[in-house]
């Protein structure tokens, strides 16, 4: 899969509450509305200007805090093609895989990428192409890649149960 867009770059410890505020977890459930509040408490410009294929870049511990899945899914609904970080918080990483959102780890790419620059990611080759060059990210563990390839945990579970 090829992901092409612009970079939205943020710092370390981007938490689930600034990605998808807790006060919306039971009240904002429509996917279009979820996209509108994505990153509301971190960057009010994001939801208004994000385009399909754009990539979020964070530092360490991206997605720390709550287990809320909407912090991953609202980015999918807003068109984000991938998230690149130095490290991901554990449950957030799982939620991304389960929602089919590529969560890529590359400290070098994070250091090199600049806010607003163009980026192209080849998920099959494991390559990030940007102004500073080409960066490699490690593949998903083989036990988990099936979930991602199926399009997420729900299609994967259907397949496992012979329902999809």
């Amino acid at each position, binding site marked *: 899969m090829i992901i092409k867009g612009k970079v939205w770059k943020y710092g370390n410890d981007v938490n689930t*509450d600034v990605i998808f505020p807790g006060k919306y977890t039971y*009240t904002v459930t429509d996917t279009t509305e979820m996209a509108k509040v994505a990153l509301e408490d971190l960057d009010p410009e994001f939801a208004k200007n994000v385009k399909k294929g754009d990539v979020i870049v964070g530092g360490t511990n991206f997605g720390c*805090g709550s287990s809320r899945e909407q912090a991953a899914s609202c980015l999918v609904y807003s068109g984000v093609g991938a998230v690149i970080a130095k490290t991901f918080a*554990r*449950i957030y990483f*799982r939620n991304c895989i389960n929602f089919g959102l590529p969560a890529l780890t590359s400290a070098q790419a994070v250091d090199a990428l600049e806010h607003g620059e163009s980026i192209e990611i080849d998920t099959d080759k494991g390559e990030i192409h940007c102004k500073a060059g080409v960066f490699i990210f490690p593949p998903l563990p083989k036990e988990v890649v099936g979930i991602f390839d199926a399009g997420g*945990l*729900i299609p994967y579970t259907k397949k496992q149960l012979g329902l999809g």
Partner: protein
Amino acid sequence: MGKTFSEKILGQKVGKSVVPGEIIEVEPDVAMSHDNTAAISKTFYKIGVDQVYKPDMHVVILDHCTPAANEKFAENHKDIREFVRKQGIRNFYDIHVGICHQVMHEKGHVWPGALIVGSDSHTTSYGAFGAFSAGIGRSEMAAIMARGKIWLRVPETIKIVVDGEFPEGVSAKDLMLKIAGEIGADGALYKAIEFCGPTIDKMSVASRFVLTNMAVEIGAKAGYMIPNQATLDYLKERVTHPFETVESDPDAEYESEYHFDVSALEPMIAKPHSVDNVVPVSEVKGTKIDQVFFGSCTNARVEDFKIVVDVLRGKKVHSNVRMLVFPASLEVYLDVLKKGWITELVEAGCVIMNPGCGPCMGNHEGVPANGEVVLATSNRNFKGRLGNKESFVYLVSPRTAAVSALTGKIEDFRN
């Protein structure tokens, strides 16, 4: 080479020896979900299964917005009640019973050696009772309802050894904030933490819980302690499931080891807007406060109430401060009510709320106004956490919260 508790519990589940980094598929003993069960049930039906795989594996507890703040929350609760009835999920606790992480152990759903998952990040809490417990996402809970399985990575383990006697009034919360400040919000990312040492062995059940509850705040997958005698006595009255305590081998390999001596520990505080932005309370002494949130799964048990009541007895909360009190559960509420403490808190000017998560994720019951400062006994102070990104949340122990409520400013209780 010896094994850590995580390698042992997860290994028992798959019936073979496992090593850190290995990914395994397991069937949990217990799977907990809360108000998010409505969304989980919709995802579950999307899979195309009609019947929950093992209804008795699941525990459903309503606590995140209780009673319902508006029609959306009300519909959400209604969907959950219908779902548990239809699916025969017997372990269901409606809005009056309390915060999920408290109710889980009060009602006997937690035991040493158990493998527990919950669609809530603070599921790490149950390690205080010797369980391996980790937070998961909503879709994962729906998949467990459908086929009873989840993948887990066997984590490396960090050992945190604590010794020394706490100075008068300094508590587990101060210790946990100190640990968060030193190790950092991502210091235990993907790792299990084993808390041990003479201080941990001597701590009360409620105090030990503070540490494993907040293990997730430093990134941990699970927190763990060998159950001490107080814990075993507590569980004896409640758990019907047979259990055996699982201990790490003496020659188990730990990824890293930290030592903390509490004998000179000061009251600590996490400043806005992160849990590792920690300083001694004395450094921010005098900061004006508008609200105190005494509640949450971290610090709202009977021992916390005793501390707060002893501070407020016969006195008045400062006229510029709103002090909101949320017992962790119905059981805690009834206990402190019978002791007469609720009367004393009301006389001191506190607002008594029902057991539940309250304003902890900004749903209702005490959202601060722009520019306001809240002292909270909870576990998270992210920007906007209590429902307003223009407010400032400081995390403290119950004693610091109560003493500061009297003067309307952050106080070092040792003065």
